[in-house]
């Protein structure tokens, strides 16, 4: 969007993004996880949040490099801290899925934070049930192409020992292209355009999970330079 001199644009966009820090959802005493002191961020929720941030950052026409680097480094840290589970039985959470779908469908960041907040709230229930890191495990995980692996935790067991290779492989491509991608505008346009039709394809629970994974998978494929357009985002792969 071109800015023109003299055009006074109100800050609604900014204010949508920056929800005030009176987000005391985690101080709500009715939440079981709040019986103790404020819970530290769970690795899995932080992982998802970071991936979302990365997603958002990359959708900018010219990402803030510092923000990007810091988020990626945080993601690496979080991932390194998550020990790989030998087997992760798929545990789709009924309450988490619509939140994820909601968060993907939301076009504004305000809705995103709100859905993230409710998602984290749901997770705080689930965390108490088991030690398994994350209910957002994709169940119908087909064989991954060489170029892309999804960042969702269910795939961790497919990667073998935690060498941090997931993000190392996929997110490396992220920076690889940063320079040339600025000269190749089509690299950005399909990423943002194709991602949008994705969520519209199916709001069902399982489809929502696949959408999440599919969208992120697509995003990573684009980043490592595979032909993004050959992979239809949506179910039925």
């Amino acid at each position, binding site marked *: *969007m*071109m*800015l*023109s*001199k003299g*055009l*006074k*644009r*109100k*800050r609604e966009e*900014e*204010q949508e*993004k*920056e*929800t*005030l*820090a*009176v*987000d*005391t959802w*985690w*101080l709500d005493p009715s939440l079981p996880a709040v019986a103790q002191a*404020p819970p*530290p*961020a769970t*690795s899995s929720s*932080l992982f998802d*949040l970071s991936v979302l*941030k990365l997603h958002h950052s990359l959708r900018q*026409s*010219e990402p*803030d*490099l*510092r*923000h990007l*680097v*810091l988020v*990626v*480094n*945080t993601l690496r*840290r*979080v991932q390194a*801290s998550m020990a790989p589970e030998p087997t992760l039985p798929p545990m789709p959470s009924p309450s988490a899925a619509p939140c994820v779908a909601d968060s993907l469908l939301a076009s504004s960041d305000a809705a995103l*934070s709100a859905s*993230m*907040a409710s998602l984290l709230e749901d997770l705080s229930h689930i965390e108490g049930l088991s030690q398994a890191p994350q209910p957002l495990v994709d169940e119908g995980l087909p064989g991954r192409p060489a170029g892309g692996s999804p960042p969702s935790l269910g795939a961790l067991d497919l990667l073998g020992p935690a060498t941090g290779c997931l993000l190392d492989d996929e*997110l*490396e*491509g*992220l*920076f*690889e*292209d*940063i*320079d040339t991608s*600025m*000269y190749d*505008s089509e690299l950005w346009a399909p990423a943002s355009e194709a991602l949008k039709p994705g969520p519209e394809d199916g709001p069902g629970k399982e489809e929502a999970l696949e959408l999440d994974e599919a969208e992120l998978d697509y995003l990573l494929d684009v980043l490592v330079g595979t032909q993004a357009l050959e992979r239809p985002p949506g179910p039925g792969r």
Partner: protein
Amino acid sequence: MFLKFSLHSMFYGAGGGNDIQWCFSQVKGAVDDDVAEADIISTVEFNHSGELLATGDKGGRVVIFQQEQENKIQSHSRGEYNVYSTFQSHEPEFDYLKSLEIEEKINKIRWLPQKNAAQFLLSTNDKTIKLWKISERDKRPEGYNLKEEDGRYRDPTTVTTLRVPVFRPMDLMVEASPRRIFANAHTYHINSISINSDYETYLSADDLRINLWHLEITDRSFNIVDIKPANMEELTEVITAAEFHPNSCNTFVYSSSKGTIRLCDMRASALCDRHSKLFEEPEDPSNRSFFSEIISSISDVKFSHSGRYMMTRDYLSVKIWDLNMENRPVETYQVHEYLRSKLCSLYENDCIFDKFECCWNGSDSVVMTGSYNNFFRMFDRNTKRDITLEASRENNKPRTVLKPRKVCASGKRKKDEISVDSLDFNKKILHTAWHPKENIIAVATTNNLYIFQDKVN
């Protein structure tokens, strides 16, 4: 002398702050709560004498205020700052090659020392630096032979006498004109500019590179730091700020997103990729978290006027470093430690990425930086006292002494304290400036500029 000092601090140190009593002086900018995007202040800088105060905003405009000469009769306050010049420094641009819009937001302004009647400053947006000349015109020539007063040419045949045009006074006009445009040298976003003590060269820093320019030469610059890795996939660190040493024209520092500061000597080699000194404080293991790196990212670095120390600002603290000691800072001041337990929320809403600046007072005895809720903090290095003040239009009449503020981190909130959860994280003070000689400070809220002075009796 000692007794006088302690009595003085007994009466005036009541707020837990310095001996100075800060008073509201002026506020500039729109009153309405609806903030226009273009009016967001993005940089504030006093010139070398303190007579001029420049601000840059997101709309690419520069506004310069001038301090009126002190009224000898009414000496209860120092001169007020009034608008001296306003001009559009940068326009929004479109990079057709990359299909990207270049923001016109002014990231930094730096003044040149005054050499003649005119004033010069450098202003920069993400990609282009400009040298502006600000000059006054208060006379104009009158009495041309060939032109009428309104500019029309006279019929030469009617000219029968010759006269010499004379200068007559006119209303003061302040003109700003761009004298140099330094463009096309930065692939990434410029975060800093710094004028060398030789007053002939300056540096500009973006996320990955630092360039050295000569003020007279616009068609080339020298790259002196390049931290771009051969494979971008190895990128883990960016440059966040850079500054020349105030006295040593071959020395500069740059800070990084990993909390390190590198001091470089340009005499060592042409490309200063290898630092002379590396300043880094080891991580405190008890405070380690997923956000350790983000909060260690340095958002500003400033040399003291003396050149012996430098100050860095990270998310939660201000650190003073002795240039002779690399392994840890000599002083650390906590700006808003109560935010440490909120880092996850602040990460979620991106506030953890806010870049606060910091500044020294003229004598290097007090440092100042901003915080949230329109609070700003001052730390007296000698007395070790600190104070929190608020930039707000409420209860601010001229010469009203500012009341110290206190944030209640946990537990029972005392009267007049503010709880952490009531803080407004949209009201952030990122930019502050201190007059080079006097106790006058300029504090920028989102779209207003506050000027405070110490109480003059």
